[in-house]
């Protein structure tokens, strides 16, 4: 979806209406590098985009239904104190705090990311429909500020999804590789959790420092 979307975007890599300027995109008329795109040409990319959009929608609905039916949405909805806890996680990763903040299933930063991701996904779908049918579904398009802005929010939603996904995958490998097999088989060993290991990204690669390296119970 992202690759074909970028190929479509490259057919007119700008947001401004003809004869106007656009305020909020610094790279107007600068195409996305071709190696990031998919579809070969505009028509091919559109065909992929309009076929795969159904996969994205169905996938999203299955995910939401699953999270709802299993009650796992409770682990993801924002709660009071999340901003404070997120800040503590940032401080921990920035070595401004020694011990890993206490966490439940997810730490506060994770929670924020996993909550924002479906929101951005829903935004991507809604803005996508808005620029697919700007006349027939003009109420939806107007909701996003018209065709030009709906196209912009579609792009922004894509960026949010890409950035969150890249950080997410990076952090899985960097701080919680033990969760990878657990994603498929279950049986996550809590003794290997980032909290138990006081894990920062790739912390085993850093020079050994007592305060960082030793879990609290070992000292």
């Amino acid at each position, binding site marked *: 979806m992202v690759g074909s979307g970028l190929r479509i975007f490259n057919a007119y890599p700008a947001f401004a209406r003809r004869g106007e300027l656009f305020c909020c995109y610094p790279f107007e008329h600068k195409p996305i590098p071709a190696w990031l795109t998919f579809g070969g040409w505009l028509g091919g990319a559109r065909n992929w985009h309009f*076929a795969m959009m159904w996969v994205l929608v169905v996938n999203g609905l299955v995910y939401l239904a699953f999270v709802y039916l299993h009650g796992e949405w409770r682990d993801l909805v924002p709660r009071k104190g999340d901003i404070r806890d997120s800040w503590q996680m940032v401080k921990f990763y920035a070595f401004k705090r020694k011990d890993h903040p206490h966490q439940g299933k997810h730490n506060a930063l994770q929670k924020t990311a996993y909550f924002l991701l479906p929101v951005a996904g829903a935004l991507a779908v809604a803005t996508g429909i808005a620029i697919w049918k700007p006349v027939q579904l003009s109420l939806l398009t107007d909701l996003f500020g018209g065709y030009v802005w709906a196209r912009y929010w579609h792009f922004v939603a894509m960026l949010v999804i890409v950035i969150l996904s890249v950080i997410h995958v990076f952090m899985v490998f960097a701080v919680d590789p033990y969760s990878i097999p657990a994603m498929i088989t279950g049986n996550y060993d809590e003794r290997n959790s980032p909290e138990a290991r006081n894990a920062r990204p790739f912390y085993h690669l850093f020079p050994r420092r007592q305060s960082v390296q030793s879990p609290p119970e070992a000292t």
Partner: protein
Amino acid sequence: MKFDPKEFVSIGGIDRREFLAWGGIMSAALLAACNSRGPKSAEKLLRYAERKNRVVERALFRHTSMDAVRPSAYDARNKLPSYFISRTVPVWDESVRGKWALEVSGLVANPMRLTLEDLQRLPRVSERVNHYCVEGWTAVETWTGCRFSDLAKLARVSPEAHYVDFQSFDDDYHESWDLESAMHRQTVVAYGLDGKMLDPAHGAPARVYSPVKLGYKNTKYLTKIVFMPKMNGGYWSDMGYEWYGGT
């Protein structure tokens, strides 16, 4: 419990070497896919999806849904791109081809040949609407002409006609439409742009214009409007853009 960094290289039964090998293969596959059209075998699936999307799009179509220009939008004026498939701007040469006339034919009780003057005598409408290009840009313009639905009424279209083909003298450019979209109030056979007569750069002497279709569906340099029982593809539709191309 002490964490052993060596454990990091054997996650889920994959050692580092395997991990790098798989990573390499996956990255190579990803790079090979870049800017490609995707696998040939997918073409069938994509065409299937396009046919199904068409059903959804036709179900969404309402004659009452109108395109509205946002109050803050400016007219594109000379920033409206000029587009044609011939090597040079197609110009109707009267000394060679005789007087231009628009043929309305096919499944109609009253086939017609309308000169530009005949078109101008029909009830005149001006629509200030968005142009939605397949490339993603929009442009605001005012198109003047007669409603397509008025032409259809005059031609007395047969109930067997479900599609209409717009043909041109710009090489073999044509695009066929579903009749509903053509009968939409904002679909006009336009001979004026921004208060002036249409110029050859934008489809003179007359073109079809509707905000309910993407730009490529709006045939310029019109010669024939043919009512048909079946769809007849089109220049860009045959090339791979969606046949429906609706907004």
